[in-house]
């Protein structure tokens, strides 16, 4: 997202401009969902944590310092909440055994893809999700993961290759 517009929106949110809140939610929902999906590998968990992230981000928006980018800030909240969630999940062995991402109460669509995504490493899944959910550019990956665009491109390529291998060996597409 255009960073000037972003500043403008964040600024008006700090001034409690309601429409600006709505715009920010809509502008960042894709990225936040991508981060959560990338880190957690499970659609339902991703939805829950993404929702928590946006709520937390917007209710605490006054903490965003001037000129600090809202995108980076909300991404960090998402990452922290995901890490918390994973930690909690690790405590619960029973939940851990439930291989994330596959079937469960998810809709039946894209079973092979979801299964392969669940088996990808977090690093690779995150790159793919950011690419497809946030504007199909490596810029979103670079910004969110705080790496260069070249590194983002390389990571995306590795993720694609790995995903292909998974889809192939798992008897999918």
């Amino acid at each position, binding site marked *: 997202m255009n960073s000037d517009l972003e500043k403008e929106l964040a600024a008006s949110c700090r001034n409690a401009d309601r429409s600006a809140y709505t715009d920010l939610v809509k502008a960042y929902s894709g990225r936040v969902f991508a981060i959560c999906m990338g880190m957690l590998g499970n659609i339902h968990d991703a939805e829950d944590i993404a929702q928590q992230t946006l709520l937390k981000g917007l209710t605490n928006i006054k903490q965003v310092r001037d000129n600090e980018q809202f995108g980076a800030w909300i991404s960090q909240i998402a990452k922290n909440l995901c890490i918390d969630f994973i930690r909690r999940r690790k405590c619960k062995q029973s939940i851990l055994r439930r291989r994330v991402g*596959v079937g469960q109460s998810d809709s039946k669509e894209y*079973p092979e893809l979801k299964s392969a995504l669940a088996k990808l490493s977090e690093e690779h899944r995150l790159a793919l999700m950011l690419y497809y959910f946030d504007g199909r550019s490596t810029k979103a990956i670079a910004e969110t993961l705080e790496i260069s665009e070249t590194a983002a491109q390389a990571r995306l390529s590795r993720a694609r290759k790995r995903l292909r291998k998974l889809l192939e060996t798992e008897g999918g597409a």
Partner: protein
Amino acid sequence: MENSCENIQEQIPEFVTGALPAEKADELQHHISQCKVCSEYLEALQADDKLLGEFAEAMQSRVVRLENNVIEALGLRPSDKTVQTIPIWRTIMKSRITKITAAAVIIIAVTIVVNRFGGSIDGSSVALGQIMENMKKMPWMVMVTKGPEGVVAEQWLCFDREYWIAKTADGTITSYDYAKREQYKYDPSSKTVTIDYLSQDIPYFISSPQAVLESLFEQVTEQATKPGTEITQEVGQYKGKKIKIHKMAFSANELNHRSQLFIDIQRNLLVRMLGSSTDSDGKVIIRGELEFEYPEKGPSNIYDLGVPKSATVVNNAPHEDVLEVVRQYRSCRENGPQQYIAIVTSGMQGTKIIYRNGDLLRTEFYFFRDINTWHEKRKRIESNFDSLWKWWTDNNNSQLTQVYLSDGKYGYYCYGLPDKIRSYRVDKRNPGHEALDTIGWPEISKYFTPERQANIIETDYSKENDLVCIELVFPGKIDTESKVTLPQKWVYYLDPEIDYICVREKYYRQRDIAWEDKDDSWLDGIDPNKIPPDKLPQIKEVIEVEETKAGQWYPKRIARYADDGTPREEKRMIIPTVYLQTDPPFPDGIFDPGSLPKK
């Protein structure tokens, strides 16, 4: 050779996203044209790319739900009236033609002007509407989007031919032929033209040349109602023509916005839109420009806009025979009755009533309080619309549980009736379209994709009855957990003599429909518990047709049942049926959103 393949395959992921430098891409293509292994690898990665894109699109509804939850939780909107207006830039950014509107942010600044003028500020909404209508009458319209770094995209619209074609700064050229339902896309990095069936399932703002223009004019931006707006009008010159300039300035969100509309006075056409936003120090934050031209002629295809003739063409569209039949069918489907009431009895649970009057649509769902009474009654009601309608409008002992109403622009959903009413409103729907499937016009082309093959076939039934038969096959699948999705097949029988009505639709979900060898050995070794049982073929059959006064045929009565070999007439169970009445008197206020059930 092996080493070289390894190198090439390293580069394929970048090639797929168009990130590979041109000279490397050329080398790669050269190699691929001669190497089956690498060419297959490329195809696989392209398929993965498509799959991921589809997945992201499918997940979009969850993201929207998420947004609505958050907005609701923040108390930004009352929960029973969630209005889902999607800002134009966001919709555009998410579309397949993203790059066209990389400068979409700019459009916000520009559309603000339109909204202000469209509002009550200077009372010129009528004038603006007139300008838009004039634009639609032009043979061609070209819209050039310019950003700080020059031209971002040019879009050509032909309202008559229902054609849209666009070129972005990176050389991507896309065309939508709405009449032929063909979509061409040229990717300059792979020098490939891909032809696809143009689905009806595309965002509103790109669903027709009219919609492209209307979306530009209509977009409602909340910022536009900020107080303290200054509006001035002046007369000037632009490109040697006398013009009227509407200027508007207002401040919002600590920024100063200035926008201008240039109207060609003689032709009453929009020729230019400018928008800019500056901060308190006068630094320009956003600046954009749209230029409009109205040439006599435009490109007839993507090659006219610069696609090299040597580009590789990948045609994913179904065979021309199928397309031709579908074109005929679609034309009849869309031009069918526009005014009707349909009673849809589902037999077991309740009944649906559809009222349609042009762009207005209302659907009501009723549940029977006492199903046995209905079954008893039903035996005595004649199987025609009038008898059912009479019974319906008298005391029918049923409960209205859901209503959907569309006023042509917004859809209003009310459910949880009568006690736990919940309702919401959504933007832009194509109401008639939604109801067509129910009243006997299935959307045959909805599932035309490369992996789902559509073909014209002949069966005994089609030969005996002189029907055209389209078969659509979805292959079966086994997922990683060895769960099986059985192959599925739809067979549509169309009758060309009565406006291509789909007189019979048969659906199969069986193990031996479509797999490589057309047998079920692909299931060997799979846990039988994971194989869903074959389903009896489901049939939807038109059992009565009628002709309107204008001479159009339409299905009047349609029955649905499972094909277990028993003739339909002998089936004892009540068959779910659709009864249609055209040009009926509509109950008063039936399409009025104000009449919807309230809490």
